[in-house]
């Protein structure tokens, strides 16, 4: 994503805050890095540190804001607890809402992310349309999701592992066979990379690309509202 100072992020189905915390840590470390390099360069060049400029940069980093939206209140509460425990008190807000019908105005965010959430939504096209609506022109849609492995040999190994082993592990380690059975099935019934790319394009995004991770087990799709 490489967020710049002042970015407003909407993280959908991200109740537990994984993306949100990483985003905030990244922009804060960037602002620390920037002020550190500004300090170094100015001392090297013997120029006085322009405090206004510096605070402006870090101030804009403090402008970075992430709104975490989730349909499930319990997930949001887990995220809120984790935020308190990590000492993150500013730059984050929590919103309960349905990804197919976001309680958000048009054109209000710079980046929209949804990580491992879209396959659980009932109408994927509606979710992508909502993403288009709430993003500003120039805004970026990013989706991280399980996808399809194209290599047949790897796919058969992955399928066997998914269906034979994962629910068993779920039962033994988490006493929950059913959730993990649902997980592996929901992965299979989700669109493959190309089909999902087509959906994103149809909803209006441009420069739609995807990047496979681990031979296609996971894919990151990205599109811009242009």
């Amino acid at each position: 994503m490489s967020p710049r100072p002042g970015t407003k992020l909407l993280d959908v189905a991200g109740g537990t805050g994984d993306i949100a915390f990483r985003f905030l840590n990244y922009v804060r470390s960037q602002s620390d890095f920037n002020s550190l390099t500004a300090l170094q360069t100015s001392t090297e060049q013997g120029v006085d540190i322009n405090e206004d400029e510096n605070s402006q940069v870090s101030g804009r980093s403090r402008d970075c804001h992430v709104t975490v939206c989730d349909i499930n209140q319990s997930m949001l509460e887990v995220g809120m607890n984790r935020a308190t425990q990590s000492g993150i008190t500013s730059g984050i807000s929590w919103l309960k809402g349905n990804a197919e019908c976001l309680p958000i105005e048009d054109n209000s965010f710079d980046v929209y992310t949804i990580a491992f959430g879209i396959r659980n939504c009932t109408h994927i096209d509606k979710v992508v349309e909502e993403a288009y609506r709430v993003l500003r022109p120039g805004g970026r849609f990013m989706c991280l999701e399980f996808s399809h492995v194209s290599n047949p040999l790897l796919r058969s190994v992955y399928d066997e592992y998914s269906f034979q082993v994962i629910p068993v592990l779920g039962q033994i380690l988490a006493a929950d066979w059913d959730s993990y059975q649902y997980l592996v099935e929901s992965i299979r019934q989700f669109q493959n990379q190309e089909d999902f790319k087509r959906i994103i394009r149809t909803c209006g995004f441009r420069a739609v690309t995807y990047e496979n991770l681990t031979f296609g087990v996971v894919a990151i799709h990205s599109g811009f509202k242009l």
Partner: protein
Amino acid sequence: MRNSMFYTCMLFPVPRHMRNMASVCVKKSLSYVKYLKFRRILKLNCFSSTSFGVRLHSTSQIGSVTEEDGATQRGQYRGHRPTTPLQKTLLTLGSAAMAILHPDRGDMIATLGDVTAETALKQIKQKMESDPIGQQILRDQPVISTSTISIDYLGSLGDNTFGKEYWRFLTKHGFSPDARLPVHYVDDPELVYVMLRYRQCHDLFHTVLGMRPNMLGECVVKWVEAIQLGLPMCAMGALVGPIRLMPKHRQNYLTTYLPWALRNGQNGKFLMNVYFEREWERDLADLRQELGLEPPPEEPYPR
């Protein structure tokens, strides 16, 4: 619900003859292995479509059996999780390991029991069918729960009765007769009640044998169950459980309890053929004598 979601997705873009096949398979509740192969056959038809918005809500239009909680029954009975031989092996090893490391994981003992029990359950069922009381139990299929038994009634019985002793067992340890886990991994629906009956009677075995639900008591009960019922999980528990005994109990176990358990297991009446629900008001010592059980070395709940 999840199964029907999947079948909805499969049925939408699929040609009619395959759609009919799908609905037939769902109605007949195909086994898990066939379900996997069937999915692979239809996968290409489903995923190459340009249908947007895969419907994930549950639908009752396909003719699948919907359970009370909205889930679709995918096995032979409610709660059935069909498993392949590899999964059974993994479950056996994994649940056995987890049960040893964390004996408080009752669900692991239940899983281990389910997965390994098929042959033993058939033999238990045969023994029940060849006994008049066993036949009655199989016919009535009584269930021990708070809706069928009143705890207060048990507490109101005389001090020496079997029912009162069971009441002491429940109240002293905070147990509820409702807490028995459902059966998931037994594949034959005819054997499911037998497994369930065994689980429900486990606490009653504790009571009639006079064993507390501590590690020592559990090992002893497992020995009796292993000898009488032949369930592999009971045998494993009986052999491996004592490893976790404290040294002070181990000595006691070897000299007193183990021989006592072996004698009771061999001489006692087949406990699955006891209609416990009719014996609440029975004198406990009387009942033990009738069942051929020696009284315990130590009273579990001295008055």
